[in-house]
């Protein structure tokens, strides 16, 4: 056994390298493999900041729904947050995107999904769950000038239809299953100006907002796509290969395919993608 930093011989039972003082038994680096990741999350050999769970994560449910989130290629951290859970016959997805111009936006989005998703799974109405999340995010701010903020979109799938609620520019699309390439059909309207600034959000400076709510009944089998603008900014004119949306295709594969597309287009923002099969034999 040798020290990962100075390569001096070390004994397995030692806590520190006797030659250079490096603490032994630290987590291994994702890039160089040295057991040298320190408490701040940097490798003490190659310097790489280790990816955190939130930087890059995947999630699947037994019922087939899948989600991926990624910090993208331009941002230092992921300020998107997502929740995807099942309760009986109900599937709940919530996606929030931290507002870049607000402080601690990553906390805002994390708190919002943490509060809203379990509430929706318990049967709380979409507007009420939105209000609960809004209250929790508002508490993070000490003043209107220090107000962490995020967008919000929720989808509750039950009994063959989806109830959607949103504020800001995170969106829901419909991807019909088909033989050929398919284009995504948008189901939500952004709360945003023509130049892209959002006009509704969660946060201490948000005012008393009611979310937009819509019930969607699928025309046939397909997948509900819930996503942040890190994906949809690259969806215009983009067609998804039919095979990927095929009833036999795994939603996780389609989610990864969409993520690759977003990163391939530049990955300018955090990307979050949730896919829930809906209609047809999925019920």
């Amino acid at each position, binding site marked *: 056994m040798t020290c990962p*930093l*100075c390569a001096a011989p070390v004994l397995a039972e030692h806590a520190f390298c006797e*030659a*250079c*003082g*490096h603490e032994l038994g630290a987590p291994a680096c994702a890039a*160089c493999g040295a057991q040298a990741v320190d408490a*701040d999350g*940097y*490798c*003490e*050999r*190659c*310097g*790489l*900041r280790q990816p955190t769970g939130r930087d890059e994560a995947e999630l699947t449910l037994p019922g087939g729904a899948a989600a991926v989130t990624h*910090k*993208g*290629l*331009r941002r*230092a951290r992921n300020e998107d947050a997502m929740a995807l859970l099942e309760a009986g016959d109900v599937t709940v997805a919530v996606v929030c995107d931290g507002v870049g111009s607000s402080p601690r936006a990553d906390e805002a989005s994390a708190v919002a999904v943490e509060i809203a998703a379990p509430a929706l799974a318990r049967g709380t109405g979409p507007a009420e769950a939105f209000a609960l999340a809004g209250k929790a995010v508002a508490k993070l701010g000490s003043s209107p000038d220090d107000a962490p903020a995020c967008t919000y979109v929720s989808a509750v799938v039950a009994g063959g239809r989806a109830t959607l609620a949103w504020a800001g520019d995170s969106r829901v699309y419909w991807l019909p299953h088909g033989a050929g390439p398919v284009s995504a059909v948008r189901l939500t309207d952004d709360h945003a100006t023509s130049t892209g600034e959002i006009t509704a959000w969660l946060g201490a400076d948000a005012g008393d907002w009611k979310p937009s709510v819509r019930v969607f009944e699928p025309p046939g089998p397909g997948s509900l796509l819930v996503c942040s603008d890190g994906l949809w900014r690259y969806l215009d004119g983009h067609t998804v290969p039919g095979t990927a949306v095929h009833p036999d295709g795994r939603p996780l594969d389609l989610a990864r395919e969409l993520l690759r597309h977003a990163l391939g287009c*530049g*990955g300018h923002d955090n990307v979050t993608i949730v896919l829930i099969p809906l209609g047809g034999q999925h019920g």
Partner: protein
Amino acid sequence: MGDQPAFTLQIDQNKYLPLDGREVHAILTVSSTGTVTTTTSVPAEAAEVIIVDTSGSMSGGKIREARQAAASAVQALRDGVNFAVIAGTDTARVIYPRGRTMARASRATRAEAQTAIGRLSANGGTSIGEWLLLARDLLDAHPDAIRHALLMTDGQNNESSDAFARALSACSGRFVCDSLGVGSDWVPAELRKVSEALLGTFDFVRNQSDLSAFFNRITQESMSKTVAELALRVWVPQTATLTFVKQVSPTLLDLTGKRADVNPLTGDYPTGSWGAEEREYHLCVEVPPGQIGTEIRAGWVKLVRPDTQEVLASGNVLAQWTDDLAQSTRINGKVAHYTGQAELHELIQEGLSARAAGHVDVATARLAKARQIAAESGREDTARLLDKVVEVDPRDGTARLRRNVDKADEIELDTGSVRTSRLRQGGEGS
């Protein structure tokens, strides 16, 4: 060390690198926020050696000037400070007190020392290294004190450069030495070596009447130090290279060559003793190429006491690769400012050397460019001195060297070029 001040370390940089970017620059601002003063708390023990050049080149006006300077220095010593006075020729001898121990400053010992200084005459050779070695021996008897020497000379050293370098290296890290240039034919080059090796300043006081104020400042500064010896401990990744570590404020001092390895990735760079003050350092790391979006710690900086390994402050220098030119081309204001200050210093040094060697074109180009940077970065004093050496036509920018340059102006320009200006609040580019 109940009086030890608190330290902070702040890092200014633009962490974004273009895809082929390899160089990471950062300015470290180290502040000691302590309010330890000589009136409100027990001062740290201090030991001061005053060294007077009494070689033959000092005869006439210069030895009178040096005697007055040394007497002023003694006068500025606080009661209780350990001190000694050395007269230097081709050998060194302690002229006060007698023997090889130091005296405790009091009204009586200060008067005795001033009497001894008044009897000094100029005669013999110059071996600055020998003087510093004797100062080291005296100061070594006070290992717990803030150790400091004050050297007064015309800088005309006739020791072999090897012997001088050996002596400097033997004294390095043992005490801090500030130097004062005496006379108008003073040679800055040798004292620059002393300042670099012993982490001190070197100054030229133009008017005799300013000497007392100068010594008051130097000895006050020295006696206000409360922490004897701190180092900047810098880690860089295994595949990276630490290109340089320089003090850039209040003066320029290249610490790169003073590295003491801690382990293969980490080295200590000495910073000398600290009181309540603020200094800035410029660090440059060459990193291997990285992938878009990847963030690394390119440098991990800690302010440490090497004797106890205590970490007083720390910070990260980061690098993140991006294809967004708006991010990667932004230059941090402080990095730009101190890069300019270092360039100004180099231009002045190169310009003065070229001028001395008779290379008129090189000297003119360098000094004219220096004049421009000095004006742009708020160094009015430096710009004024440069105006005495080089004349720039404001209409078309053509420059020519002035014929009759006061030697004192040239020395002041030469010695003063290591002083840097601070970036003005809200300064351009920040």
